[in-house]
């Protein structure tokens, strides 16, 4: 059986390489998308916020707070407090984007935060500052705000690395879905009949085709990894961990794609179903957004998707210098996705082939 599996895998690879669409799907497209998204969401430099402070109360206490805030602007320049004369001016400046948000200190030290929907992060910073002031006032603390840089990870998240992984994963669904499509095409044009009329079993055909598309998918992912690392200086993390994660991600997505293909009756159906499920999982898994931009409710859902799990693991390896050990649970989860869904998919396809 092994020689038949390898014969089928070799022929499938040859056909995929000759087919430009396969090369585009597995290699060119994820690379291009990674570059585009990486440039769009470049987080290599720290974000900066300008928060207006309005002393509306006119009391000694409110003036002290306002002065203290302005004096405590971050030395690194990531948060700058500027004094604004009055509330209406602050409101205009927030609307026009001159400042991200404004904290208005009233006469009884009540705090109002002026925000705009166009700068949600600035709004959060302003609200955090106000909350901090309120806490200090309640507890009778000293200086109302102390800005301390607390690094979240060991490294900055590299946008080309993150979106390189993200876009490769997105297109991996399509690439690995080609195995089921190929089998259904062979069934439609009766090439499969010819194969099965000989000593080759249906399982050898299925495994051979999945092996071929998985190999192509791994190759595509590795190309994206290497190109973004060399040309764009993307920091993916430990090469060994990245390579293992690539393989396990391909296994997971190949399993899910095969599962989807198991419910299709024709190659065209398999293509359509793969596209629909791919986009749904990609939206839920956060492939189109940066890690910080995923709304809180979706973060839990994200972990239930194979692509979301894989992205989390890539992020950990990239930012926290994660090793195999630190992502072991993610690897186990990905393997389970691949084995369980893949087995069900293969059994369904095998039954369809035999009927």
């Amino acid at each position, binding site marked *: 059986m092994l020689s038949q599996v390898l014969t089928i895998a070799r022929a499938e690879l040859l056909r995929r390489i000759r087919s430009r669409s396969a090369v585009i799907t597995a290699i060119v497209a994820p690379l291009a998308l990674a570059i585009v998204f990486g440039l769009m969401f470049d987080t290599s430099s720290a974000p900066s916020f300008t928060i207006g402070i309005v002393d509306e109360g006119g009391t000694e206490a409110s003036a002290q707070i306002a002065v203290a805030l302005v004096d405590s602007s971050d030395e690194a320049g990531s948060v700058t407090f500027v004094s604004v004369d009055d509330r209406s001016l602050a409101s205009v400046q927030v609307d026009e984007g001159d400042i991200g948000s404004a904290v208005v200190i009233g006469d009884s030290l009540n705090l109002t935060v002026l925000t705009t929907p166009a700068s949600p992060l600035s709004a959060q910073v302003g609200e955090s500052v106000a909350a901090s002031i309120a806490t200090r006032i309640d507890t009778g603390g000293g200086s109302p705000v102390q800005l301390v840089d607390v690094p979240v990870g060991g490294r900055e998240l590299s946008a080309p690395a993150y979106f390189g992984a993200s876009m490769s994963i997105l297109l991996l669904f399509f690439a690995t879905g080609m195995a089921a499509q190929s089998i259904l095409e062979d069934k439609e044009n009766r*090439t499969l*009949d010819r194969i099965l*009329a*000989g*000593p080759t079993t249906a399982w050898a055909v299925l495994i051979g085709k999945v092996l071929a598309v998985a190999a192509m998918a791994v190759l595509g992912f590795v190309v994206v990894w290497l190109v973004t690392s060399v040309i764009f200086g993307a920091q993916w993390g430990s090469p060994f961990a990245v390579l293992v994660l690539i393989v396990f991600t391909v296994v997971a997505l190949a399993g899910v794609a095969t599962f989807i293909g198991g419910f299709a009756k024709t190659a065209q159906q398999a293509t359509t179903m793969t596209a629909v499920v791919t986009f749904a999982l990609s939206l839920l898994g956060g492939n189109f957004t940066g890690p910080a931009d995923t709304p809180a409710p979706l973060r839990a859902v994200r972990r239930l998707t194979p692509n979301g799990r894989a992205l989390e693991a890539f992020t950990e390896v990239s930012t926290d210098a994660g090793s195999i050990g630190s992502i072991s649970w993610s690897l186990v989860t990905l393997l389970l996705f691949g084995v369980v869904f893949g087995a069900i998919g293969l059994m369904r396809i095998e039954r369809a082939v*035999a009927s």
Partner: protein
Amino acid sequence: MSGVVLRCEGLVRRFGDRTAVDNVSFEIGRGETYGLLGPNGSGKTTTISLLAGILSADAGSVELAGQQITTSSTHAKAAIGLVPQEIALYQDLTAIENLRFFGRLQGLEGKTLRDRIDAVLEIVGLRDRASDRLEEFSGGMKRRVNIAAGLLHEPQLLVLDEPTVGVDPQSRNQILDSVEILGGEGLSVLYTTHYMEEAERLCDRVGVLDHGVMIAEGTQDELIARVGEQDLIIVSGEYDEQLVDACSQLVGVDRAEMTGRGLEVLTADGTAVLGPLVALFGEHNAVIGGLQLREPNLEAVFLDLTGRALRD
């Protein structure tokens, strides 16, 4: 060694409520070319799928070269060389790449595989096009590569499922010539077709399938004898029931019927009936579009057995 290379007994296959193959039994001897004749939808392809172990039978058995064939058989299937009706090859690969692929799946490797590829390409006359992609071939050439792929592993039984469908006349003749040569060299062949003339040219024995049932089997002479060596007169055109009834009443006419080709008349002596038949047309003011007198053949056999023409 048994003189029988294929034995099918009581084969049954259903698809839902429809019985595609209904208790079909037949044998093929070593070195024999056996024709499976029947119109489209008669169960020929399903029968082939059963005996090739592609589909599982709901009942019955298939024995090939002394071994039982099922869908899970592997070694036993090496005795069969299947040439499906469709061009079951990869269009984006070259002829030689396709043959290499199918040869390897049959367990051929290295020099043995190379020699066999050369040999089969020689048989089908395509050695000079071996490195061209199949998508560049004409329909007839693709069918020849299709046959070559079935011959690679030197099977004991070559199964050809309507190999000349949609093929130009020149390629068709080349295919028929190849099958004749292979049969002459002692290869057992199962040949399915709905072209009566192909069966008459190639086959030692013929089985006639209709609606999944084997309705007759034998040599061509045996089958033709069933219809009493009758001549077939075909009058081209559309004619009403009154004229058809009148024709069937003529002395010497055994049967008259409207088919897709016109009015068909079965008679023991066509030349004797022709005159009265033409006169009858004159009496009914019917125009004769064309007139053919055919010797008894498998077409007549099928018409006699089913009341329909082979290609209705």
